């Protein structure tokens, strides 16, 4: 063969080029990788270790057994899941129709509404939460207007309770649901619905049998995102819950600020992280996780 006359034929040089290219790629991503290790992996690992340290400074499982034994802890987890679940459900009920409306609009109008979705998204959560407090409290705008318009007579307690927490959380979580749902809706081929309708499906039937199933991955991704974000949410329930709605994140804060018990706080953090991890792992079987970042197409 001719190759025997030129045995090398640039093979060594090409191989060197390939490894050089790989090295450069690694070099470019190194700062980001280093940052992730420093600000994410190390602190989480440290918290993990701390959670197994008891009050006496020795290895102990007391931070975990406490969660199982104390009724107050069980209650906190229950409320956390309750708030997360209801917020997710409300976000689906409010967000899906809104995303559908956006997807049906001509691009110019859809963009306008999209700004309305994103604008609060870009505003501080703290500011928005206090704005809700102003609106919802007993002497707040909503109560004043409703009473002067005769819709109800007595001020309604809309804040410092569960409903206040849910209203605030829903408002903050909606964009996380709307964005991925809108993304999948825009990716649904409009001919699909036309095809269903030419085959004899009424608009309602075409929606439920074709359009809705095709947008489910986006809805699932959005709902998952909202649920996981809710699990660790702090500011809104703390401000709008009026101390009656204690979620895990608030217990973490009080463990540190009030009791200076890093072990107990760490253990709660670890449990939340594990729960979120399990949910994501289970979800990954149904949906591509990159859709969580919006669209993912």
């Amino acid at each position, binding site marked *: 063969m001719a190759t025997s006359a030129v045995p090398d034929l640039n093979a060594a040089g090409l191989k060197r080029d390939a490894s050089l290219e790989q090295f450069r790629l690694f070099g470019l991503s190194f700062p980001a990788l280093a940052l992730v290790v420093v600000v994410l992996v190390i602190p989480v690992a440290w918290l993990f270790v701390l959670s197994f340290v008891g009050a006496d400074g020795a290895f102990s499982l007391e931070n975990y057994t406490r969660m199982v034994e104390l009724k107050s802890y069980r209650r906190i987890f229950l409320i956390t899941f309750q708030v997360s679940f209801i917020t997710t459900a409300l976000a689906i009920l409010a967000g899906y129709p809104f995303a559908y409306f956006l997807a049906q609009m001509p691009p110019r109008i859809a963009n306008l509404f999209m700004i309305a979705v994103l604008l609060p998204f870009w505003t501080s959560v703290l500011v928005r939460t206090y704005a809700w407090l102003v609106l919802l409290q007993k002497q707040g705008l909503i109560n004043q207007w409703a009473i002067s318009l005769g819709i109800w007579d007595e001020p309604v307690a809309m804040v410092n309770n569960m409903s206040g927490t849910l209203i605030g959380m829903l408002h903050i979580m909606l964009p996380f649901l709307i964005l991925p749902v809108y993304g999948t809706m825009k990716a649904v*081929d409009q001919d699909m619905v036309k095809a269903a309708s030419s085959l004899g499906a009424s608009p309602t*039937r075409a929606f439920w049998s074709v359009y809705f199933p095709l947008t489910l991955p986006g809805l699932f991704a959005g709902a998952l995102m909202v649920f996981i974000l809710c699990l660790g949410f702090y500011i809104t329930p703390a401000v709008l819950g009026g101390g009656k709605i204690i979620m895990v994140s608030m217990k973490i804060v009080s463990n540190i600020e009030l009791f200076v018990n890093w072990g107990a706080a760490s253990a709660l953090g670890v449990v939340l992280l594990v729960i979120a991890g399990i949910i994501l792992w289970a979800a990954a079987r149904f949906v591509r996780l990159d859709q969580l970042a919006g669209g993912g197409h």
Partner: protein
Amino acid sequence: MTSQSPEALPISVRHITKTYGRVHALDDVSLEVKSGEFLTLLGPSGSGKTTLLMVLAGFTRPDRGSLMFGDREVIRLAPHLRNVGMTFQNYALFPHMTVAGNVAYPLKLRGVPRAEIGARVEKALETVRLGGYGNRRIDQLSGGQKQRVALARSIVFEPRILLMDEPLSALDKKLRDHMQIELRHLHEQLGMTTVYVTHDQREALTMSDRIAVVNHGRIMQLATPRELYERPANRFVADFIGDSTFLAVTRTATGVSFAGAPLSISNPIPDAADLLLMVRPERITLARDDNSDGGNRLPAVVREMVYQGDSYLLQSELTDGTLLTMRGAVRGANLSAMPAVGDKVTLNLAPEDAVVIDGRAD
């Protein structure tokens, strides 16, 4: 399938107009599709052919006009009540259902008993030669197979009208040629009135009983493929279907003349202000020296000569400066004696092949 397929329905389109702003997508279109006919809407993109199909399906609401399926007015009927089969350019198969699920969909909507659905789905799949593919997922199919599933889905409920929107445009050429013949056979077998949209003139010529050439939202000509090719109504149709060279001719007392010389033409000459002689490249030949081919003689100088294997393309300049394209057969006998660039040649156009058309462009 033929035995149980119901009567096909004629379609009658009358004065349908659709405007988008100031653009006439459809400009007072009237058209009769005969029962069981394979009619193709042929035109360039933006001509209005797809808009017309969408009006037939009910997805586009025209400004005015009437649409009859048989003796029933359907112009205001919702798409899902029209009972027409339709295939889409990108197939529009439901990815969350299997092949069988897709084909069963229209039957389920019609409340067909479960036991019957299975048999009818399998039969429809067999009709498109996909028997046994029922359990496949849509993303496991090739383009041609998707096309067949889409077809099976649109015929399984035995609609009396079938609409097809560029169904073969996404397939490669070889598969497209094959599917053209297969669709033709399927149409003969099922006998439903079919309206087919394409921008591919060869596809239209191959498949259709009649072709409606559409441009600027109007029907330029509605005729059989042969009539359309042999006797185009105007320059647009002649230009769109096949390649041709157009020579400006003038009317004389006895007929027409080109560059001062009278032409002998055995086809009728249209009653129009501007007249053009349409010369198809394959209908003109190099004149024989002994004059035994006795047609119209056109002296020319060869400007370009391209050998293409099965034939050769000769571009030559006529006395008035027009470049005329001729396609000649390549045979062993003339291989060595082919004309070369710069040669003076005489072209021969038989009176039967000399077609004078209306010179309007649209």
